[in-house]
Structures are given as C-alpha cells and as structure tokens.
C-alpha cells in the first residue's frame, strides 16, 4: 500500500511541475499575461492597405499599448481592408474623430496601429468605426514615388 | 457428428480440424474428444502443433476448417465477447508459467478474480490463500515471480488457473525442464486438482512416463494426424511401429534417425572435389 501511495505522490509532483512549467511559459515567457486584461470594447477601422499587419498586432496611443487587432478581412463593398480592434476597457476616452495609422516599429520591425487622438468631446464606444485612417507605407510604393518625383523634378529644372 | 456436441460426456470435441501456418501443415483432419472429469493428454514429437491445439480450444487461433466445440459452443464462431465469457471457464498453465513479473505471487493469483468479480478484498484474500494452499505455496504469497524457482512458478500459475474455479484446465508442457521432485509434485497436483475439483484436464506433453502415469486417455499426433489413441496401457501395448517407437523412446524406427540425405559414401567423396 505504501508503494502505491509513493507512486501517486511522485506522479502528482510530476504533473504539478509540468503544469507549473506550462504556466511559466504562458505568463513569463509569452504574452498571455498582457491578454489577461483584454476585456474591452471593439471598434473597427478601414484601411486602403494594411501592409504586414496581422491579427494580434498591437494597438497603441503615444507608444503605449492600449489594445490589439482581433480580426482582419477584406470588405468587398468599399474595396478596403476592415480591421477589428479591441481596446482595453480602461482607455475609454478616445475621441470619435481620432485617426488610426499603420506604422512599423523600427526599420524592419513588426507593424502596429497607432491611434492619434482627435478633438471631439464624444468618445469611441463598442461597435464604433474610426473613420480617419492612414494606410501602411509600402516600401516599393515609396521608392516608386520618390523616383517618379525625382524624375519629374529633373525635367522641370 | 456435430449433433453430439451437446453431449454431457464430452466437454471438448474437435472434428475434422485443419490448420496450417503458411505452407506448413500443422493439422490435417484431426478428431479428438476430451471427456468431462478426465485427464486427457495430447502427445507427439516437438513441433507437431500440440500447443497450437490448446490455442484452438482457447480460441486464440482459428482453424482453417473443421470444428472445435467447448461445452456445446462452437469456439471459432464465437464473438470476442462470447469467447471471453467462455474463457472464464477455462484455466491455462503455460510452459513458463507466464506469471506477471510486475506483480507479487498474491496479486498474480488474485488477478483473474479482481478482473472478473467485485468481491471485497477480504474475501479475495481468503480465496487466494486457499488456492495457494492447494498448491502448497501459501507461505510464498509475498514473493515476486523473479524469486521463484521454475517449479514454484508453475505451481503459482496453476493456482492462478484455478482461481475462478473453471470447468477445464489446460497444461502446456507442464514437466519440461523440471527436476524429478518438481515433476512429481506437478504430476500429483494435476491429478489431485482434477479429481477434487471435478475438472477436465488437457495436457500437452512429450514426457511419456509422467503422462502415462496420470492420464486417463492419450492422443498421439504426428504429421498433422492422430496416429494412435487410447488408455496409456493400450498405447504401450500397441502393435503400431510408430506408437511403439514414441512410447518407448527408441532412437530409430518409422521416425528415422537420419535427416534425409544423399548416400553417405558418395557425399563424402563428392565433398572433396568441391573444396
């Protein structure tokens, strides 16, 4: 009987260590801890081009993370990408005329949505849409534009 | 023939049994009857499929054709569930004992009881100790199988085989590789258990003297056929050359001493040229 009990205790310890390891991977190693307070409200925004934005990409204001992207799909009516965001509940004073832009963190980093606050007294709430948006900068387009304007500039001179 | 299967005399009936492993024919039309309450032995040279017969009776192998009836049920036609029900009425003692090496002697004997009944642990303990007492090993119930001698392991296996009070018990080579005292003990146990518990016993063996002493009836098989059967005394007095050779252990006879080969003298002379 004693042996059976020893085995049970050791298995219990093993399972506990395993779960503790999973817990550590979840809370300490990965970003699950920052999801924990993800209860918030959903808003949408339409972009002409989202570039490399992905689900779970961060949403920030003044560089502070306030939410994340929950879904991305293509809207056939407006020929634009529709992005669903969830904003953390405590950040409930974002003016309705705020603008959303897709930026890149660093030269080669991941893309994120940055929200610039507007001047309205009314604030965004569940289900609202951010109307002012600025698409992601696509490097090829920028280079193309640069070359074009440079060429145009050369001819006018 | 099959209308006799319900006979109260015969517990196991084998009719027209054919079986082969690949191209090797093991049984080529074998008929056998095992009577209730008797000790019946299947004898034959090594490799003649004696153990295979036990597996057919236990339903672990299916015959290519022919019938195997146990207690009125046709074994090859049973579903898995029915077969398992039938096996609860069978005990089997394997050549090596086949004790579970990870369990003590006590747990080994208790295993079938725990698996198939919901008896309280106190009752199981009494039952197991009674079965172990019957084979003279009650004092060894705490040992592990690795601590047992070969003979003791077989006796424990015997106690386990009778744990559920089966109708019949099958012994696969019970005497092989044992010292004379152990052989005597096992012989006595087989006979005693058969008679006191009113079992039907089927032994597979090639130990002529031991088997003749305890069997009521013997089947001799060779090359897939029954070549002689009868009470031990009848077989010993048989006029058949093969039966005589086997029963008296003569080195040469109908079963030749030499494996078929070309002529000895020519073989040796040819061999010199090949090197």
């Amino acid at each position, binding site marked *: 009987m004693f042996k*059976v009990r020893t*085995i*049970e205790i*050791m*298995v219990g*310890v*093993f*399972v506990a*260590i*395993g*779960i*503790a*390891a*999973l817990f*550590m*991977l*979840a809370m*300490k*190693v*990965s*970003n*699950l*801890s*920052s*999801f924990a307070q993800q209860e918030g409200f959903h808003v949408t925004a339409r972009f002409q081009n989202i570039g490399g934005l*992905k689900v*779970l990409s961060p949403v920030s204001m003044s560089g502070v993370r306030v939410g994340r992207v929950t879904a991305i799909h293509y809207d056939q009516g407006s020929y634009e990408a529709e992005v669903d965001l969830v904003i953390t509940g405590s950040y409930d004073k974002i003016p309705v005329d705020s603008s959303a832009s897709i930026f890149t963190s660093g030269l080669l980093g991941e893309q994120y949505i940055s929200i610039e606050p507007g001047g309205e007294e009314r604030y965004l709430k569940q289900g609202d849409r951010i109307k002012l948006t600025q698409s992601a900068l696509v490097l090829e387009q920028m280079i193309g534009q640069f070359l074009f304007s440079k060429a145009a500039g050369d001819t006018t001179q | 023939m099959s209308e006799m299967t319900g006979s109260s005399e015969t517990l196991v009936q084998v009719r027209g049994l054919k079986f082969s492993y690949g191209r090797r024919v093991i049984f080529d039309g074998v008929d056998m009857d095992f009577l209730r309450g008797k000790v019946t032995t299947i004898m034959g040279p090594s490799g003649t499929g004696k153990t295979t017969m036990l597996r057919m009776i*236990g339903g*672990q192998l299916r015959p290519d054709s022919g019938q195997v009836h146990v207690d009125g049920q046709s074994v090859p036609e049973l579903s898995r569930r029915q077969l*398992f*029900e039938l*096996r*609860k009425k*069978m*005990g*089997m003692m*394997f*050549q*090596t004992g*086949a*004790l*579970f*090496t990870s369990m003590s002697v006590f747990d080994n004997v208790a*295993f*079938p009881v725990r*698996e*198939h009944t919901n008896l309280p642990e106190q009752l199981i303990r009494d039952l197991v100790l009674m079965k172990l007492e019957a084979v003279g090993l009650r004092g060894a119930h705490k040992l592990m199988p690795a601590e047992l001698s070969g003979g003791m392991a077989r006796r424990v*296996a015997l106690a*386990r085989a009778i744990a559920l009070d089966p109708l019949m018990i099958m012994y696969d080579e019970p005497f092989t590789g044992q010292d004379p005292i152990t052989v005597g003990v096992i012989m006595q146990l087989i006979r005693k258990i058969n008679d006191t518990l009113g079992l039907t016993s089927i032994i597979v063996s090639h130990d002529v003297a031991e088997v003749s002493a305890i069997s009521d009836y013997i089947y001799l098989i060779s090359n897939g056929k029954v070549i002689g059967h009868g009470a031990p005394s009848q077989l010993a007095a048989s006029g058949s050359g093969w039966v005589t050779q086997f029963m008296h252990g003569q080195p040469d006879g109908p079963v030749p001493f030499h494996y078929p080969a070309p002529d000895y003298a020519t073989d040796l002379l040819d061999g010199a040229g090949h090197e």
Partner: protein
Amino acid sequence: MLNWLQRLGRGALDNFAGLGRASLFLGHTLSGLPSVLAHPRRVIAQLHSIGVLSLVIILVAGLAVGMVLGLQMYNTLVDFGAEASLGPAIALTLVRELGPVVAALLFAGRAGSALTAEIGLMKASEQLSGMEMMAVDPMLRIVAPRFIAGVLALPLLSAIFSAVGVLGGYFVGVGLLGVDDGAFWSQMQSRVDFYDDVLNGVIKSVVFGIIVSWVALFQGYDTVPTTEGVSRSTTRTVVYASLAVLGLDFILTALMFRDV
C-alpha cells in the same frame, strides 16, 4: 533478376502488412480508452514509469540546451548589437521547436524503448497470451493505459524542457554575459505569442506523444517473441519514433508557422 524483383515485392507487401497491423492496433487501442477512463489508477501507475522516470533526463537536457542556446545566440546577436533579442530568440527556438522535438526524441529513447521492451518481454514470456486466456484483453489492460500515459506525459515533459531551457538561457545570458534582466524578459513577452507559439508547441508535443507511444507499444506488441526479437524491436522503436518525430515536426511547423 526475378529473385530480386520477388524480394522487392515481398518487402513492399511486408511493409504494407506492417502498416495495416499498426493501424488496426491504434484503432484497437483507441477503442479501449473508455475502459481506461473507468480505471484512472492504471494510468497513474504508468505515468510514474513513463513520466516521472524520464524527468531527470529532461531536466538535465533542457538546462544544457538552454545554456548552449544562450551562449551561441549571444555570440551572434552581439555582433549586431541585438543582444536584447536573446530572450525571444531562446524562447521561440525552445517553445516552437527544440522543446517538443528534443523532448520527444529523449522520450523515445528513455520511455519508448522501455515500453517496447516491457511489452515485448511480456509477449515473449506468454504473459499477454496468458492474460487473454484469463479473458482479460491485454489491449485494454496493458496497452491502452500506457498509451494514455504517454500522450499525457510528453506535453508535460516538453513544457518542463522548454521552461528549464529558458531558465538555462537566462542564467547564461543575464547571469554570465550581462544581458539586461528587464530587456530579456520584456522582449521575450512581446515577441512570444501564447496561442501561436506556446499552444502550437503543446499541440506538437501531443502529436509526438501519440506517435512515440504508438510506435513503442506497437513494436512491443508485434515483436518476434524471442530475446533477439525484443532487442530488435527496441532498437526499431527508437529509430522509427525519432524519424517520425523529425518528419512530422517539419510538416507541423509548415502548417503552424507558415505566416510567421
């Protein structure tokens, strides 16, 4: 020539027959799962011999792999001034790939071979046959609890492997090489995603647990019941299970992380 063709055809047929037997075996094992759930104690006993006894090798290997990763990656990253990325680099490597894969390989070597040997010896010593004759199905009584225990144990073991590995990388990177403590963890947290990385790693290790347990149990059950047969089956378990893990890892990685 004909002989050669015959042998080739025979080999192919043997392989198909083996695959068929293995599949039937898996089906039979899975059909035994409900009866195992009725007797959880049998799984606990197996978790001990499969999981607990593999713990030491997993801990040691995890720590060693994490420390080596810390050292090597630091040397490369420091050239780009990116040593703050040491945390995410170690964590992603471990959680996505090395944790599940190396733990599965060690598991195949430690627990898989032991399972094959145990069941093979039970077959060789007629214990399985004896159990069948006692009207107890060894698939339910012996094989299914070990299968469950294997499938449960490996995800836990590989989580332990990854966690210990991250700690090993932390000791080397932060303790020895002077990477900033806060940057190590915060970068890691911002780059490692729970669902994409950690959960996919766990799914991988569940799949590997199924594969390794299946191979090990089948090789034991299908062994040639002799001493030599058991030793060959044990070798085959380690080889087949390892190859299956590596091959499947490639497929799973392609499926899971294709957009990252």
